[in-house]
Every structure is written in C-alpha cells, then in structure tokens.
C-alpha cells in the first residue's frame, strides 16, 4: 500500500517546525514516529500535502521531574517510557502501559505525543494520561497553552488541538507509591485493547469504552465515599456507550469494564 504523494520537511528545531506548521497548517500534518499516521496514509484515509517530520528533534525527547510533576517531551518514544528510571520511580503506571503498546518494533518508533494527538479511543496511553489527571502542552506561534487531559479528546480521532498547534509536552503528577494497575484485555498478543482499565491513586481511565478515552466517574465517586472495590467496580460502565465490532458487543464491553476495573483496583490496593 502506497500513500498519496506529499511534500516532506524535517525542520531542525522545534521553532522551525512551529513556524512551518503556522505557514501550512491546514494542509500539513506533524509526524513523529509515524506509527499512527503512516498506516492511515497507506489506507488513504489521510492524505496530507505536507509532512512535517519532528521525529528527530532531540529537544522533544525527555523525561524529567519538575516540581510535583513529571514532564515528558512529546517526542519520547514508547520504548523510552518503558526503560525510563525516572518514570519507574515517579509514575510507574506509564512504563507499564507503554510496555503493552504494539510490539518492540512499534515501540521503537511510536511516541507518546503522537499517540495522544492521534486520539484513538482504543489506544493505551491516552487513557493512562487521563487517569493520571495529566496535562497536554500545546505550542503555536500564538504561544503555549496547557489543556487538561479531561478536555483534550473531543471525539473519535479528534482533539482540542488547533491545526497550527503541536503537542510539545505531557505533564503528569508524581504518583510515587500510590497504587496503580493496568488491565488490558485482548484475544491475541499485539492486538488493540478490546477494553482496558488504568487505575492510579483512586482514579480510573477506560480504553475503548466510547468515542474518547473516559474516566469511570461513578467508580471514582464510590471509592471516594468509601465503598468497597466490588461496589465501586460494579459502576465502571455507568454512562458509557462502548462500540460494537467483531471483538464484542457493548454489553460485553461493559461487563469487561466492570471485571477489569475490579481486578485493577485490587492490584492497585495491593501495591
């Protein structure tokens, strides 16, 4: 499968990438690892006129502690998240989630910023960042702004990011020793989650339970009121409208969400 032809630019700095995107915003698309973008371009579901390749900008690849938060450069690859000592100590949920993305080859290319910008509700990292109450930092020639993860995804493959903006950083709280778990249900190795549940510090993120990554708000409220794990987990599918596909019906997914949430909460409680 061959993508539709396009022009290609590989600016040598973030500033140059921002300027180029401002100039050609509507017809340009940012590519980092290209592991969400290239497959849809090969299927000709996307046909940008210009690819702005930021995959080699070292200034976007970092993980560092910054006050109460950990700041992660948008160009940090899944593999980098997996092996990050900073994340292992400060936000252990993220390396565990990154390890379940695709396969080693995919994790050598795909980036956290790319995954968040792509906005696939079946992706692992968006729900994890949502469960972490993270923030997405966007830059354009108009400046920089921060969007809470709770407001970032607006629909399937749709985000609050404007065409002239690019994700430069993801900020998540240092959760340290707070309990966490990631329960991902697939039928085969390497598949997308049929449903997955990320739990950290009493917050619950749901993968593939609607058009965007979701928080299991009813479960979180029940936990805050001191309800048992079983009682709280029973509410995990409240208010969700999960998709139907060959992997399962909405009812099946709702049941999975309840079961996986219970397992994740139990694991998190034991950590």
């Amino acid at each position, binding site marked *: 499968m061959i993508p539709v032809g396009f022009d290609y630019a590989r600016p040598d700095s973030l500033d140059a990438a921002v300027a180029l995107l401002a100039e050609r915003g509507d017809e340009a698309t940012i590519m980092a690892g290209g592991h969400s973008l290239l497959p849809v371009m090969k299927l000709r579901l996307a046909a940008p006129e210009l690819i702005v390749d930021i995959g080699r900008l070292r200034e976007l690849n970092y993980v560092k502690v910054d006050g109460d938060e950990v700041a992660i450069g948008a160009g940090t690859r899944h593999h980098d998240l997996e092996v990050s000592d900073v994340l292992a100590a400060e936000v252990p949920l993220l390396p565990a989630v990154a390890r379940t993305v695709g*396969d080693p080859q995919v994790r*050598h290319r795909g980036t956290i910023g790319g995954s968040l910008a792509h906005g696939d509700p079946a992706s692992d990292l968006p729900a994890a960042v949502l469960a972490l109450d993270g923030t997405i930092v966007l830059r354009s020639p108009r400046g920089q702004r921060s969007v809470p993860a709770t407001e970032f995804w607006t629909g399937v493959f749709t985000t609050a990011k404007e065409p002239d903006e690019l994700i430069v950083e993801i900020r998540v709280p240092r959760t340290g020793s707070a309990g966490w778990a990631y329960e991902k249900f697939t039928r085969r190795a390497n598949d997308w989650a049929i449903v997955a549940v990320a739990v950290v510090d009493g917050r619950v993120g749901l993968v593939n339970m609607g058009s965007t990554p979701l928080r299991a708000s009813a479960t979180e409220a029940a936990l805050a009121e001191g309800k048992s794990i079983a009682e709280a987990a029973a509410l995990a599918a409240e208010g969700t409208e999960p998709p139907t596909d060959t992997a399962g019906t909405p009812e099946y997914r709702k049941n999975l969400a309840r079961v996986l949430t219970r397992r994740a909460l139990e694991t998190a409680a034991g950590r």
Partner: protein
Amino acid sequence: MTGVKVEITVNGRSTTDEVEPRLLLAHYLRENVGLKATNIGCDTTSCGACTVLLDGESVKSCTVLAVQADQLAVTTMEGLAGESGDSLDHPVTAAFRQEHGLQCGFCTPGMVMAVAGLIAENPDLDERAVREGLEGNLCRCTGYHNIVRAALVAAGKDPDAAQAAEAESDAARTAPGFSAGSSEGAGA
C-alpha cells in the same frame, strides 16, 4: 511533490538516491538498493516480515519512510554476513539453522532481525522474554517452537533448560492442577 535526496548507510555501505517522500524503507531496500532478504508480508505493521535494524533498533520497514532513515544506518539480514560473506556465519542465523527455526522461510529474515535486535537490547533472555519480544513477528506456518529455541541458542542459552524453567514458571502462574506440560513430553 518533489524528490528528496537520501543518504542511508545500509549494511555498512553508504547508499544514496533521490526518492519520493512516500517511498517506504522496505521498498527502498528491495528496489533501490536491491537487497531482497527483507520481505513485505502484511504491509500493515502487523507481521514483522520486513523487520530491519534502524540505528541498531528493530523497526518494521513497511511503516518507515525512506526519508525518515536519511543519514541513519540500516541493517538487513544480508548485513549479518561477516568477513566470509556468508550470513549463516552470524550467531543468530546459525542458531536458526541449528534449531531448524524456519519452515517456509518467509518470516525468517524478519524473525532473525527481530532476534538480533532483542539480544542487542537484552542479552540475558529467557523464554518468556523471547516470546514477548517476538510478539510483533508472525509465522504463518506456526513454527514458533523452534524459532523460540533458536533465539535462546543465539542468546547463549540452553534451550531445553530455558523451556523447562518456563514450563515450571507457567505452571506456577496458572490454576492449580492445570498441567503446562514438560519439555520431555512435548512434541514426542
């Protein structure tokens, strides 16, 4: 759409060409450079037949543009040949031969390069690490058993001992009374 000049070091040799930005690395290697070991199987980042090393790390070359590899180093299975010029001299290919880690052979170049990348990242592999590390490589002959053994041999492990250890560990993780089998009985 303008052509872009790329310079890619392939198996230690500098290559250069003017390419369309949409040219996939897999096609660059096969058509422009003429190295045919790298196979294109699914063309959807699933099967891993097109796996090569990009600056030493395994990637699926059907999902990398040639322009993304500009100024970088690519290793294909041909590049495993040492001074003898025989790629079967490499520890990974030699292990695949010894353990008969292939049936039809189509997935083999990708399997070999994935194993080479895996060992470069983690020389101390056990069976579980091999199986998880090869989750992005499919063998439609389903010949995984010997492929996993070949990877263990390439990593300097005794495949019988490694598989016995995994069977024991697997049995401990599964429900009591469930038999995970043993290496002695399996496949006899």
